[in-house]
C-alpha cells in the first residue's frame, strides 16, 4: 500500500507540474498533429493508398511522439536537481520508476486521444474502434516501459536527446511491427481472433519490458 501511495504521489507531482506548465503535452501534441497533416498531404486523397500506408504512418507518428515525450521525462528532475532529492527519500527505486512511467503513460495517452480523431478525420479511416484503441493502449505501455528506463539512462549523458532514440528505437522494433500489423488488420475490419496473435505479442513484450526495466532502473539512475 505504501509503495502505491508513493507511486501515486510521484505521478501526481509530474501531472500537476505538467498541468501548470503544459511543457510536454502542448509541444508534443503540436508536433504529432503536424506529422499527421504532413503525411496526409504527402500521400494525397487516394483511399486505397491511404489504407495501405495508414498503419505505418500512425505508428511512425506515435513512435516519434514517444521519443519526444519520453525525452522530457527526467529532464525537470535533473535540471532542478530533484532526482537526488528523490533518491534520498525512503522509497524504492521501483516506486520512482513506476511513478514516472505512469505519468509518461498518462501524457502519451492524452496526446493519442487527441491525435486519433484527427487521424480518423484526415485519413477517413475507422481508427476510433475498440481494436484500434486496445492496440494503441498496449503499444503505448510498451513505449513508456522502455522509454522511462532509457530516459533515465540518457539523462546522465551529454547528448541525451540523441541517446534516447538510439537506445529506444531498436528495442521497440517488435512492438512497432506488431502494432502496425495489428492496426492493418483492424483497419481492414478483421475480427478479434485474427488480431489476437499480434495483440498477444505486444502484451508479452509489455510484460517483459515492464519487469526488466523495473529491475534495471535502480542501476540506471544510481550512477
Amino acid at each position: 500500500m505504501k509503495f502505491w501511495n508513493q507511486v501515486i504521489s510521484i505521478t501526481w507531482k509530474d501531472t500537476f507540474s505538467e498541468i501548470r506548465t503544459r511543457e510536454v503535452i502542448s509541444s508534443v501534441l503540436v508536433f504529432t498533429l503536424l506529422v499527421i497533416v504532413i503525411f496526409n498531404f504527402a500521400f494525397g486523397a487516394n483511399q486505397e493508398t491511404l489504407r495501405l500506408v495508414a498503419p505505418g504512418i500512425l505508428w511512425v507518428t506515435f513512435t516519434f511522439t514517444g521519443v519526444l515525450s519520453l525525452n522530457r521525462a527526467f529532464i525537470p528532475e535533473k535540471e532542478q536537481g530533484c532526482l537526488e532529492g528523490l533518491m534520498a527519500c525512503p522509497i524504492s527505486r521501483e516506486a520512482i520508476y513506476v511513478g514516472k512511467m505512469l505519468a509518461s503513460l498518462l501524457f502519451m495517452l492524452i496526446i493519442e486521444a487527441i491525435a486519433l480523431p484527427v487521424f480518423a478525420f484526415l485519413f477517413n479511416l475507422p481508427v476510433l474502434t475498440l481494436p484500434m484503441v486496445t492496440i494503441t493502449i498496449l503499444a503505448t505501455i510498451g513505449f513508456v516501459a522502455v522509454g522511462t528506463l532509457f530516459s533515465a539512462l540518457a539523462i546522465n549523458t551529454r547528448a541525451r536527446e540523441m541517446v534516447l532514440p538510439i537506445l529506444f528505437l531498436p528495442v521497440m522494433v517488435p512492438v512497432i511491427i506488431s502494432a502496425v500489423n495489428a492496426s492493418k488488420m483492424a483497419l481492414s475490419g478483421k475480427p478479434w481472433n485474427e488480431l489476437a496473435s499480434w495483440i498477444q505479442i505486444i502484451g508479452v513484450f509489455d510484460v517483459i519490458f515492464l519487469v526488466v526495466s523495473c529491475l534495471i532502473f535502480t542501476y540506471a539512475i544510481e550512477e
Partner: protein
Amino acid sequence: MAMDNGDTGSTFQDQVIEIQGLTKAFGHHLALRGLDLKIRQGEKVAILGPNGAGKTTLIKVLATIINITSGKVLITGLNPKDNAEEIRRQIGVITHQTFLYGNLTANENLEFYGRMYDIPQRKKRINEVADMVRMTPRLYDRVNTLSRGMQQRIAIARALLHKPTILLLDEPETGLDPQATSILWEILNVEREDKRTIFLTTHSLERVLEISNRLLILNQGKFAYEESGQTLSLADLKQIYQHYSEIEV
C-alpha cells in the same frame, strides 16, 4: 550488545556513522581513497577541503544516493546496501541544490516530500517547519518565484520535515546573499543545540568554528587533518587549512 570502539570509549550504539576503508571510484578516478571515520550521536562534524577533494561524494555516500566501490559504511548501525530505506528515513540532506520543483508551490513541494517520508499529520508538520524557517507567508507561492535564499530556507524545511537524526549539509551557503546566509546559519545554530548529528561540508572557516565541535580536512579523497574540540582560532585554522589543502596526500 554494546562494544567499545577502542579510541573514544564510545559504543557502537551511540555511533551514528561508521566508515572503514571507504573507497569510491568513478571509472579510473578514485574520488574517495580508503576513508576511516566514526561519528557519535550529537557530534557536529565539519569537513573542509578544496574543490574536487571528495566532499560531495562523501555526502552522497552517506545519503545512500550512490554506492561505494569498497570498504564498509554503517549508518545508525545499518548497512546501506540492505537497509537503505530505513537509513534514508533518519537522514536529512541540504545541498546547494534545493531539490525543489520550481513549478510547484513551497507547500506542494513540502506536501510531496511529506508523502515520500510518510509523515503523519503532514499539514501540522509543514506549518511547523515553514514557521521554523520563517517562510509561512510565502508557503503558497511557486518556488520559482522565490529568491535563492528563500528557496534554500524551504529546502531546509524539506530536510527537517521528517525530524531526521542526522543532518548532512553539502555547502548549503553556496549562492546565498549574506542575509540569507545568516538566516541559514541561525537556523542551523538552533539545530546545533539539540541531539541531532550534523555533518557539514563548507568553504567557510568562520562557520566551521561556530557550528562544529570536530573538523576534518579532506584532500584528494583522503583525510589529511583532524581536530576535535573548539580549541583553534580562526587564524590557526586558516593556516592549517592552507597547509593541508595544498599538500599532496
